[in-house]
């Protein structure tokens, strides 16, 4: 039976079919759906971990115990998991272990577009790169065979266009893998220097064996056509190349590390021009050139930034562009925006009004950086808001009463807690706002340790953010209703005035949660509206100006009441 499946769902299917028992991940676009989909299989234990490092280590523990295990993350998540990644290459596995990393060229929903292929090389770990959903399923199953045969975790790399595209997948049945025996083996799993020195030799020997496999693996193959042009490519680039040059010769890479350089050398000998097509960095090109193989085109044609596509490849190869029509006048930009009724909006309104310096973090609330709120000074990575605030305030104590950090509940539990410990321990006079909307929002509503539910919707005791902050040594911890503008403003002013570290938890569940019922929509009484535009400072998508007066779109309005609070003329009313 063939089914149209998202690449991520196909990976989940592959996990199921490969007899995987243990999955632990932290959500991150474009990897999230793998773990959500695999959680639907009763045979597979699946969880959200607080962060990618924890997820990877727990998957390694499950592998040590003999189960086939898995973790998925976005590219920047692999930075968080890099510590266990590198040493798990030394320990190898007991049950097979696969780490999926989903890159996001063009940054559809990311803060950088790093190329995860570097990690395979740095950690000396094999990497597979599927090009469509069928390969997502097939490569996942194969990855477990390779993992157990070569005694190594295997990296499975996708990108947005593979993870979030749907194509046909042939479904097969689950092969139970069982639990392998656990045998105590400190020489392999206790990575103290004495043992690790020996394991490094094992890693190098394994790489040689994998290189030999790569040369003859069915994952790497040449499709010979017209020999005037020969392309080397992997993943989605293969699809783009085939679309533009259906008759050209193509060497398709499926096992992208270690590379099949001898097979590529043979291919290069059969074509007149060799062109390497890869998104982001010129990794294939460099390794092919370093092997002494002539390359006639690569990064000089395609550049290092963004996604490729059929038209970009066609243009770089000198083909004539297709004829197109253009609208001919500017079309207004439509950037993402906080939803009407978003509990983050009022907090950013207050921060903007008080003209504070705000170190920000990763989540829906990063949208607080956009106009008209424009209340964010930095966004770097998960948890950085809190630690950057500490550094900022330590060298500029005179402005610590004008500087705050904002971080979401899930992000705080991911890596904000260690940063807050730094503030508490080293006593910078810092004020941290935790925006607790009771869900992991931006990635599409995943549970986290503070929500009281697991991935499989089992009810569990939620982490108390208040007690957690108190436990690391913050004495001033308070919570406010994020919809209550006056209370938020008062709390921010008081905590900024205090001469010790403090935390304000701004609490209100995400408007999009099913159990949150929107309040009745508000409307503007035209004769009372003085067109002062106070309400417009909220940047609410439900409010616009028409005929010189504010108008509220009843379809969008969630009745949060922030605009009514701001209206000095009482013009905004229910109904």
């Amino acid at each position, binding site marked *: 039976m063939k089914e149209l499946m998202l690449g991520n769902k196909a990976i989940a299917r592959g996990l199921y079919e490969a007899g995987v028992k243990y999955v632990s991940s932290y959500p991150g676009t474009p990897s999230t759906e793998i773990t959500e989909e695999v959680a639907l299989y009763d045979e597979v234990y699946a969880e959200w971990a607080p962060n990618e490092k924890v997820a990877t280590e727990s998957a390694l523990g499950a592998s040590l115990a003999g189960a086939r295990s898995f973790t998925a993350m976005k590219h920047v998540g692999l930075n968080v998991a890099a510590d266990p990644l590198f040493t798990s290459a030394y320990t190898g596995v007991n049950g097979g272990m696969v780490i999926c990393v989903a890159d996001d060229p063009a940054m559809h929903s990311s803060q950088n577009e790093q190329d995860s292929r570097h990690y395979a090389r740095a950690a000396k770990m094999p990497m597979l790169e599927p090009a469509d959903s069928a390969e997502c399923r097939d490569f996942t199953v194969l990855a477990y065979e390779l993992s157990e045969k070569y005694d190594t975790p295997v990296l499975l790399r996708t990108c947005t*266009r593979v993870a979030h595209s*749907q*194509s046909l997948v042939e479904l097969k049945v689950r092969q139970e893998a069982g639990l392998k025996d656990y045998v105590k083996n400190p020489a392999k799993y206790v990575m103290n220097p004495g043992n690790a020195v020996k394991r490094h030799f094992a890693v190098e020997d394994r790489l040689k064996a994998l290189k030999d496999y790569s040369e003859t693996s069915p994952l790497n193959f040449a499709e010979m056509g017209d020999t005037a042009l020969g392309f080397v490519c992997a993943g989605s680039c293969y699809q783009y190349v085939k679309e533009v040059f259906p008759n050209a010769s193509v060497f398709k890479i499926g096992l992208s590390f270690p590379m099949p350089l001898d097979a590529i050398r043979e291919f290069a000998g059969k074509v007149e021009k060799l062109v390497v097509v890869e998104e982001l960095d010129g990794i294939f090109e460099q390794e092919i050139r370093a092997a002494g193989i002539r390359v006639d085109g690569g990064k000089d044609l395609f550049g290092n930034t963004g996604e490729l*596509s059929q038209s970009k490849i066609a243009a770089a190869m000198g083909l004539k562009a297709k004829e197109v029509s253009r609208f001919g006048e500017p079309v207004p930009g439509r950037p*993402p*925006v906080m939803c009407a009724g978003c509990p983050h909006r009022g907090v950013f309104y207050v921060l903007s009004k008080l003209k504070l310096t705000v170190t920000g973090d990763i989540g829906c609330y990063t949208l607080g950086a956009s106009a008209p709120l424009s209340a964010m000074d930095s966004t770097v990575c998960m948890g950085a808001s809190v630690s950057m605030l500490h550094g900022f305030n330590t060298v500029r104590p005179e402005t610590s009463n004008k500087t705050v950090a904002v971080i979401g509940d899930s992000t705080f539990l991911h890596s904000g807690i260690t940063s807050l410990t730094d503030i508490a321990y080293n006593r910078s006079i810092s004020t941290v706002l935790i925006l607790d909307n009771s869900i992991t929002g931006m990635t599409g509503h995943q549970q986290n340790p503070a929500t009281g539910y697991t991935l499989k919707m089992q009810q569990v005791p939620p982490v108390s953010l208040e007690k957690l902050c108190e436990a690391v040594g913050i004495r001033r911890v308070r919570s406010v209703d994020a919809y209550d503008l006056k209370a938020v403003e008062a709390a921010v002013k008081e905590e900024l005035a205090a001469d010790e570290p403090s935390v304000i938890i701004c609490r209100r569940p995400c408007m999009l949660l099913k159990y949150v019922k929107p309040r009745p929509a508000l409307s503007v009484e035209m004769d009372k509206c003085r067109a002062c535009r106070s309400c417009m400072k909220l940047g609410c998508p439900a409010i*616009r100006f028409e005929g010189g007066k504010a108008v509220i779109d009843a379809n969008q309005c969630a009745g949060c009441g922030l605009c009514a609070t701001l209206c000095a003329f009482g013009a905004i009313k229910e109904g």
Partner: protein
Amino acid sequence: MTKSIMIVGVGGQGTLLASRLIGHVLVEKGFDVKLSEVHGMSQRGGSVVTYVKYGEKVYSPIVDKGEADFILSFEAVEGARYLEMLKKDGTLITNTQEIYPITVITGGASYPAEPTQKLSKLCDVKAVDALALARAAGSEKAVNTVLIGVLSNYLPEIEQDAWLGAIEKLVKPKFVELNKKAFVSGREI
């Protein structure tokens, strides 16, 4: 021959379900099908794009400049934004509903006047007030199925029952009748 449909709209309008519904019907019909979606940040009220491609063998999942046989636009100005993706002889099916982006709301940019009329001079346009039809069918959220109904007239190889069957399979049971009604109202335009 591969055919390409591009679906554009505003995050939250149901473009994902639309592409999945069209994809489902095409698979049932025996085509090789690829869809491409974008999740995450852009869904928060931003401009969103999904692609549907089908034929005997489809390679790239994305639709590129000058390649779309159809653009299905859920909002009046989104079709204008992506017009260069339309084939020279392609058709733009557009909802006439205007949703002001935050850049217009805050006064930084202006919303073009009469975008649909202007587009009609540049390409083949089929314009419908999908919001009104969706309301008449019972919910404003059914804009997506109304527009699929309009599109269905341009895909003669697929009969009405196949579309209605896909709605039954992919839409939550309590919204099936409403969406069928919305589909038919779009198809009968």
